[in-house]
C-alpha cells in the first residue's frame, strides 16, 4: 500500500475510494435513519459497495475477456464476477425479505418509524403480567 502516496498512486486506487465511500455511506444510513425502508436502502448500498471491492481488482490493465485466443496473453480474472453474481442474488433475497418484514410490521403497528414502534411496545414481556 506504500504506492498509495502521491497523486498517481491515489488516482490508481480511485476504485477503492469509491468503494469505501459507498460502504461508509450505506452503513451510516443504516445506523442514522429510523425509517425501516431507508435502513434497507442503506443496507443495499452497503452490500453493493462490496461488489465493487471484488470486481475492480479482477480487471487487469490491457487484459481481455477470459476466452482463450492465441492473439492474447493477458486475461482478466473472471472468478470475482461469478462470486459477485452469487452475492447479488443473496443481496436481492435479503432486500426482498427485509421489505416483506416491513410490510408485516406496518400491518401490525401501523407505522414504519423505528421510534414509534418502540413506543408501542413499552418494556419487555409485560402484557402477560397485567392480567
Amino acid at each position, binding site marked *: 500500500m506504500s504506492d498509495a502516496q502521491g497523486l498517481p498512486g491515489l488516482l490508481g486506487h480511485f476504485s477503492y475510494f469509491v468503494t469505501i465511500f459507498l*460502504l461508509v455511506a450505506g452503513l451510516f444510513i443504516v445506523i442514522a435513519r429510523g425509517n425501516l425502508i431507508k*435502513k434497507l436502502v442503506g443496507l443495499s448500498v452497503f452490500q453493493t459497495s462490496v461488489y465493487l471491492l*471484488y470486481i475492480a481488482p479482477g480487471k487487469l490493465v490491457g487484459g481481455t475477456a477470459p476466452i482463450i485466443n492465441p492473439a492474447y496473453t493477458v486475461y482478466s480474472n473472471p472468478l470475482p464476477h461469478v*462470486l459477485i453474481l452469487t*452475492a447479488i442474488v443473496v443481496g436481492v433475497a*435479503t432486500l426482498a425479505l427485509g421489505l416483506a*418484514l416491513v410490510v408485516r410490521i406496518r400491518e*401490525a403497528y401501523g407505522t414504519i418509524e423505528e421510534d414509534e414502534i418502540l413506543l408501542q411496545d413499552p418494556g*419487555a414481556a409485560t402484557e402477560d403480567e397485567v392480567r
Partner: protein
Amino acid sequence: MSVAAHLPALQVVLPLLAAPLTVLLRRPGLAYAVAVAASWCTLAIAAALAMQVAGSGVVSYAIGNWPAPIGIEYRVDALSSFMLLLVSGMASVVLPYARASIEREIPAPQHYLFYTMFLLCVAGLLGISITGDAFNIFVFLEISSLSTYVLIALGRDRRALVAAYQYLIMGTIGATFIVIGIGLLYLMTGTLNLADMGLRIGAVSGTRPVLAALAFLTVGVSLKLALFPLHHWLPNAYAYAPSAVSAFLAATATKVAVYVLLRFYFGVFGESQVFGRLPMAQMMLVLALAGMFVASTVAIFQTDLKRLFAYSSVSQIGYIILGLSYDSATGLTASIVHLFNHGITKGAVFLLLGIVVASVGGVTLLRVQGLGRLMPWTSAGIVLAGLSLIGVPGTAGFVTKWYLVLAALEKDQWWLAFLIVLSSLLSLVYVWRFVEAAYFREPRKDLVPARVPPSMALPAAVLVAAVIVFGLDTTYTVDPALRAAEMLLGRAR
C-alpha cells in the same frame, strides 16, 4: 461410486432437497414426516462421516469432481465432524418436538413453510461446517441466516417481526463484513480454498490488507455469534421466536459462527498472526469477561424466562470466547466442548420452556409460580439444565468450567479462575429466580396446565438426560474436542 463416497455432499444436499419437497407436499403431516426423516438421515450421515474421520483422518470431497484449490472442496476433519454431529443431532431432536409445539404457536396455513425454513436453516448450518471454501461459507451463512429471519418472524407476538427485522439488519451487516474479509484475503492470496489460503498466507503475513481482513472477519463473525457488545439482536430474537426455533437456534446457530471464527483464526490466519500481530487475545479476553458478567447481571433482572435464558446465552458465549483467547490446547478444548455442552443445555432449556408455553400459555416469572407442583417433571428438567448452566459437578456445564479453570491455572492466572467461579455465582442467581418462582410460591388458582403430548416431552427428556450423561462421561465430548483443538493448533505451528 458407492453412496459412502458421496456422504459429504449428501450431508448438505439431503436437507436442501427436502426443503422444496415440503413446499410441494403442502400437507403439514407429510411435510413433518419428510422433515423428520431428512433430519434423521443427516444425523446418520454425520455419524457415518465421524466414523470415517476417526478411521482415516480427513475426508475430502471434490464437488463436481473439480480438484481442490480450483473447485469447491468439502472437507470433514475432527472439528467439522464434531459440528456436523451437533447440528444434525439437534435438528433430529427438535424437529419431532416441533409439530406439537408449532400447532399451538403458529397459524395452520404456515405449518408446511415452517418445515421448509427449518430444513433450509439446517442445510445452511451443515454447509458452513462441512465446506472447505471461503466463499461457500458466506453463501451457506446467508442460506441459514435468511431462513432464520423467517423462522423468528413466525413467532406469535408481533414483536417477533421487529426482532426478525433487527436481526436481519445486524446479520446482514455481519455477513457483509465477512464477505469483505474474505474478499481481501482472496485479493492477497489468490485462492478461496481455506487450506490453500492457510498455506499461501505466509507470504503476505502481516500486510495491512490481511490484518484488515482479520479485523473485518472478527467483527462480522462476532455479530453472528453475539459476542458481548454485538449481542443486541439475540435476546429479542430468542424471546419472540416460536419455542422450537429458539431451542434450535440457541443450540446451533451461534455455535456454528464460533466454528467459523475458529476456522479462520487457526486454519487460515494462524495463531502467530492473530495473537502475535494484533492484541486479539487481550481484546477477546476483555469482551468475553464483560459478556460473562454484564449479560449474566442483565439476565438476573429479566421477568420473562425466555429472555432470561437468552441473556444467559450471551454470557455462556463469553465462556466459549474466553477459552479461545487463552491460545492453548486446554483452552481451545474447553471452547469446543462448550459448543456442544452449552448447545444441549440451552436446547433442553428452551424445549422445556416450550412445553411450559404450551401448557400454561407463557413463561413470565408470575406465570410459572408454583410450577414445581403443577408440572414437576418439566420444572425438575429446567432446574437440572440450570445446574448445568451454573456448572455443578455431574452436569455437562461442569466439564467445560473444569477445563476453563484448568487452562487459566496452566497460565498461572489465578485471578481469571476466580472470575470464572464468580460469574458462575451470577448464573446461580438467575437460575434461582426460576427455582424461587416455581417451588416457593403458591400456584395461581386460575392456571390449569394443559397436557402436552409425548412428542414434546420425549425430545426434551432426551436432552436433559444428555446433559447428565455427558456430564458424567466425557469420552464422546472431550476426546474429539481435544483432537480438534490439537489439529487447529498443529495446523498453525
